[in-house]
């Protein structure tokens, strides 16, 4: 145990308000520059318009920043919120926190959701959201003590940088013998030395007697946290019951929660077994359907993929309850006990690995041509401990590896690293370099967009090929699904507000496998409804997995099975029971639509949010190289002949590649048109004034902004 010091430099005693129907109606504000602590009321109009969670975060952030604000300016705010339903212990998946801030990699609004106890404990301590502005050169720990009704800021010294040890030490320090009362938010050295830092949110595992964590990974939220001089933010609360949220109708809440919880207990073992194997079942399923990214999204399949499949992780995961929130019956946060890394500062020491999940397996495994589950576990462990996003690390290294294999960069650029696909030691070495801000890892840690610029400027690499194979959009690295054969999912990624993360829409199976949406209008409808419904989870503090990863047995007989309407109705009942506002499924969509459009307008305010910003690299749309085309020549030839009526006789691969590209890129542009129309946006992808008015976000500054951007109707 290292010697460390926590010196209180500021404190505020406060009176904790009663929670009424899931809300505290106040937020906690910290300015680290001048050590200011304040408690601000939530206006009734804010509550009505933005619902909570991500909605509150966006409104706080909107008011904190200017169009000229950069991610590392003191006024950039880091906001964390639960939501009105967050912290309910009965209903599965009710412990999510949402983080929002201006991103170092996209320069616009980023949101990232995460499990763990922090969001609920923050709310039970008296705050619907936390907003942190300012910066400090002396690292601080913030302690939100809901039990003793006190906020403290401590200057720190001697604490370890890595989140693995830091989480354990701070849990022990603040717990006073009750570690389950503590949740720690922290990052690690990788967040300081890269732009792709994540945040770790802890939950206490009583059986294994250790603080475990989940990650808010996307868009460098951990980098903002570290840049502010935050070492950790800790929340303390005890005694969570069905009454803690003070629901409007407890009997109704208990009834609907019991229905959903029992259904999961009954059906998960018959379906995806998430309580046993998490999301690792997806690996072989994606591989079978040519959807598992391998070798920087070149291909969707690899014969060695089963080495990373659920059969392996079923054996590696330590059995037991792994719920990242109390009472969740999905309980998918599995981990590996007594794992011994082969490299880095924990080389030879037994550690506990939180994960891996599917995204990490695909990102740090197959997409790097690595089919060794132990290397994936080691990458997972160090990404978390270093405070690095496994998705951006995986997609970033994959891009660098392909550039190396193509001869665009070489050992003189990589510091002698032989960055070939499948080189496990090189991938791990790069990860350690990222954490330490050293060598070639320092460049890879800037993310794919900046890597492309550096390679072009410093290494004289042609930009066009990097634009095609660098898997980022809006500055965010793609998460780990192949989209070449699913136009709808190309839109699911490309039209997502923050960049290509699948939390808005995951339509590959509906589109590609089942062909349920053959027309542009059907795809556009899906790209309206699914992002809107999925956004609702982030407003309320919920996990989406219980919605559509465990399916009612009679769902297949419903009109629109993909929506799992029975569960949507349960969620409407859940919201009504907690908040006392009687709502139906359409009301949930309206809540989300309001916040969703506001976020799009926020992007516009920051200089983005137009049609051109919804472009995606061609690797996400179709084959970039002759080799890719030829690997699936029958598929592509058939499409040219049957769908586009092209005579391919005598045409070279390069000619067919170019023709296919032209057609596929046209399809994507047509999809944009259809989706913008369905969403009530202009052909440039901007919400119309009419849409803003309909949704109640026609604030004077919003309408002035739309006018200034040429939106007059």
């Amino acid at each position, binding site marked *: 145990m290292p010697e460390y010091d926590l010196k209180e430099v500021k404190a505020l005693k406060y009176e904790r308000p009663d929670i009424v129907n899931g809300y505290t109606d106040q937020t906690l504000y910290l300015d680290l520059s001048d050590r200011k602590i304040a408690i601000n009321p939530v206006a009734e109009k804010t509550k009505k318009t933005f619902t909570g969670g991500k909605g509150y975060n966006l409104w706080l952030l909107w008011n904190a920043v200017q169009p000229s604000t950069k991610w590392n300016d003191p006024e950039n705010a880091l906001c964390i919120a639960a939501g009105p339903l967050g912290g309910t212990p009965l209903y599965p998946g009710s412990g999510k926190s949402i983080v929002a801030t201006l991103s170092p990699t996209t320069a616009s609004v980023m949101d990232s959701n995460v499990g763990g106890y922090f969001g609920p404990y923050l709310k039970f301590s008296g705050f619907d959201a936390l907003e942190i502005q300012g910066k400090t050169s002396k690292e601080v720990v913030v302690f939100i003590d809901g039990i003793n009704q006190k906020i403290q800021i401590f200057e720190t010294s001697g604490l370890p940088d890595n989140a693995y040890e830091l989480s354990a030490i701070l849990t022990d320090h603040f717990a006073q013998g009750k570690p389950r009362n503590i949740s720690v938010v922290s990052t690690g050295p990788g967040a300081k030395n890269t732009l792709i830092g994540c945040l770790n949110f802890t939950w206490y595992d009583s059986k294994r007697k250790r603080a475990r964590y989940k990650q808010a990974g996307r868009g460098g939220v951990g980098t903002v946290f570290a840049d502010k001089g935050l070492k950790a933010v800790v929340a303390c609360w005890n005694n969570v019951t069905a009454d803690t949220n003070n629901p409007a109708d407890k009997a109704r809440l208990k009834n609907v929660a019991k229905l959903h919880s029992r259904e999961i207990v009954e059906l998960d073992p*018959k*379906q*995806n*077994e998430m309580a046993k194997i998490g999301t690792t*079942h*997806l690996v*072989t*399923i994606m591989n*079978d*359907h040519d959807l598992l990214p391998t070798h920087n999204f070149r291909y969707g399949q690899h014969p060695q993929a089963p080495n990373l*499949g*659920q*059969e392996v992780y*079923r054996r590696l995961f330590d059995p037991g309850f792994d719920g990242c929130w109390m009472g969740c019956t999905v309980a998918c946060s599995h981990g590996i006990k007594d794992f011994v890394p082969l490299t880095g500062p924990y080389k030879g020491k037994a550690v506990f690995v939180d994960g891996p999940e599917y995204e990490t397996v695909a990102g740090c495994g197959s997409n790097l041509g690595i089919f060794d589950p132990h290397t994936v576990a080691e990458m997972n462990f160090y990404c978390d401990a270093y405070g690095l996003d496994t998705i951006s690390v995986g997609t970033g290294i994959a891009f660098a590896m392909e550039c190396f294999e193509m001869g665009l960069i070489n050992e003189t650029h990589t510091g002698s690293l032989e960055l070939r696909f499948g080189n496990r030691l090189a991938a791990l070495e790069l990860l350690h370099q990222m954490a330490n801000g050293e060598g070639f890892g320092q460049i890879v840690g800037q993310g794919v967009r900046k890597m492309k610029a550096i390679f072009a400027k410093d290494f004289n690499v042609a930009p066009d090929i990097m634009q095609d194979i660098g898997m980022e959009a809006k500055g965010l690295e793609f998460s780990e*699904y192949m989209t070449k054969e699913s136009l709808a999912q190309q839109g699911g990624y490309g039209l997502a507000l923050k960049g290509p993360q*699948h*939390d808005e829409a*995951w339509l*590959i*199976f509906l589109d590609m*496998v*089942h062909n349920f949406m053959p027309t542009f209008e059907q795809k556009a409808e899906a790209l309206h409804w699914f992002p809107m419904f999925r956004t609702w989870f982030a407003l309320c503090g919920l996990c*989406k997995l219980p*919605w*559509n*990863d465990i*399916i009612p*047995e009679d*769902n*297949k007989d419903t009109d629109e*099975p*993909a929506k*799992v309407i029975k569960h949507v109705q349960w969620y409407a009942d859940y919201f009504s029971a907690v908040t006392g506002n009687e709502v139906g499924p359409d009301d949930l969509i309206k809540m989300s639509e309001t916040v969703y459009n506001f976020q799009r307008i926020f992007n516009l305010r920051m200089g983005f949010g137009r049609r051109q910003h919804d472009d995606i690299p061609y690797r996400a749309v179709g084959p970039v190289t002759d080799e890719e085309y030829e690997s699936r020549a029958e598929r592509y030839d058939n499409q040219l002949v049957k769908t586009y009526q092209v005579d391919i006789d005598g045409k070279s691969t390069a000619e067919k590649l170019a023709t296919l590209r032209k057609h596929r890129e046209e399809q994507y542009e047509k999809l944009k048109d259809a989706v913008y129309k369905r969403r009530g946006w202009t052909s440039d992808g901007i919400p119309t004034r009419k849409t803003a008015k309909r949704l109640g976000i026609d604030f004077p500054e919003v309408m002035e902004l739309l006018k200034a951007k040429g939106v007059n109707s």
Partner: protein
Amino acid sequence: MIQVAGKQHPWHDGMTVSDLLKEIDDSHPYAVVRINEQYVSRPNFEQTIIPDDTEIFLIPMIAGG
């Protein structure tokens, strides 16, 4: 005999997943099934032989993400 979605179903030698899905009264377009703990996807339905005395789970839809 095999068990399919909780119900007994007669097994025959060489029975594939495709054969089974044709035999049962269920028109849902399944893309994935489980044979005990083994996941099988649609591209492999025709060549995957179901052993006797196994339990088959029909995975209704892979929602992902």
